[in-house]
């Protein structure tokens, strides 16, 4: 579990290496591969039991381990190996630099995405479906199933998954608090008692009438309104002025 959590912070072995480089304040352009290899290997060894799922980490682990082991060779052989070392380091640095560039590009894409999401559009007009009647009945050749599966994906996506801009937007239900605020604004102008129905004049849905009723109850409770019920069972409401 701990492994999952820790590795989930990273997008892969290169991301983990970049993290270790910045954590240990290593210079990417003058990389001390020895330190990086040690850090990386100890990180991986900590989680080695649970690593079978993340073979990508193991591939890099193996090559860094090889690098480390070469460092342990007797000096003479190590000198012969210097070219190999340089080579391996250059290759890794080049990969890290390139990966970091795309990581940065991804960060700017994220900003673009956030900005874009604040600009909302409306659904295409329902009239379009009416207008887009095929002119000819018989000419259905060259249809491809890719288009069909794309259509199905579109449907599923809209139906269950991402609810993107094109989904019908659900209007939030009005709350009693919001309604109290709206009524409070209306009431001072009503010196005379008014019917409950008058307060519902702008309601179009049952829910809004119920919320209005709840708001009225609450306002009576708050001593902002008094009520009387006449013999025709009409509810009359009046503002309490102090």
């Amino acid at each position, binding site marked *: 579990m701990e492994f999952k959590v820790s590795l989930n912070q990273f997008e892969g072995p290169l991301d983990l290496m970049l993290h270790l480089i910045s954590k240990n304040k290593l210079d990417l352009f003058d990389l001390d591969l020895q330190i990086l290899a040690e850090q990386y290997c100890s990180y991986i060894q900590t989680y080695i039991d649970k690593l079978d799922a993340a073979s990508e980490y193991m591939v890099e682990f193996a090559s860094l381990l090889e690098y480390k082991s070469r460092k342990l060779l007797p000096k003479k052989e190590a000198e012969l190996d210097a070219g190999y070392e340089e080579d391996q380091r250059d290759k890794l640095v080049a990969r890290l630099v390139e990966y970091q560039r795309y990581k940065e590009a991804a960060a700017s894409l994220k900003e673009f995405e956030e900005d874009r999401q604040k600009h909302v559009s409306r659904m295409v007009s329902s*009239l379009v479906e009416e*207008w887009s009647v095929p002119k000819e009945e018989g000419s259905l050749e060259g249809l491809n199933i890719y288009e069909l599966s794309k*259509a199905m994906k579109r449907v599923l996506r809209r139906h269950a*998954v991402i609810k993107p801009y094109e989904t019908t937007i659900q209007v939030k239900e009005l709350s009693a608090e919001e309604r109290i605020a709206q009524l409070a604004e209306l009431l001072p102008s009503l010196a005379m008692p008014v019917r409950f129905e008058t307060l519902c004049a702008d309601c179009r849905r049952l829910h809004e009438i119920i919320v209005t009723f709840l708001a009225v109850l609450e306002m009576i409770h708050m001593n902002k309104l008094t009520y009387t019920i006449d013999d025709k069972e009409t509810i009359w409401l009046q503002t309490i002025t102090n």
Partner: protein
Amino acid sequence: MASDNHELKALVEGLLYIAGEEGLSIIQLQSTLQDYTREDIEKILFEMQKDCSSPDRGVELACYASRWKLVSKENVFEYAKRLYEDIKAPTLSAAALETLAIIAYRQPVTRVEIEEIRGVSCEAMLKKLQLRGLIEAKERSSAVGNPLLYTVTDGFMDAFALDSLDQLPEIEKPREQQELFSSNLED
């Protein structure tokens, strides 16, 4: 005050644009524009109505059954109609493809099931597809009301060059698709 009104007008226009065909009631507008009074909002709506009546505007602000909505002006319709007729003429519309896809992947399937997935009424579309010989309804479900069960036809198989429905590309389940999004990574 004047600049406040500018801001309010802009907000109301933006909100009405997003609302599209559903429109918004004054209550709804007021519930989100809490810094403004009902009178402010009403005044702005009437101002906007006047703004839209200008000959260089292509939408108007209508109020049906206490819901305010922006609708395109009538003289736009003939151009719009031409536009959409022309584009979709040679092939199936996106709506038709979606309906066909649901039937092909889920058959046999009732109208109500199709509508549940697409989220819109499909009656006219099903008729059209039947007329074009792409779907048929030979049997009825044993569910309440014995609704018709739609399936694709041999004509459909021909049009898409399929021997069997097994050849349809596999579709990932919505749950798997969700893994794409960061919210799921947190799970």
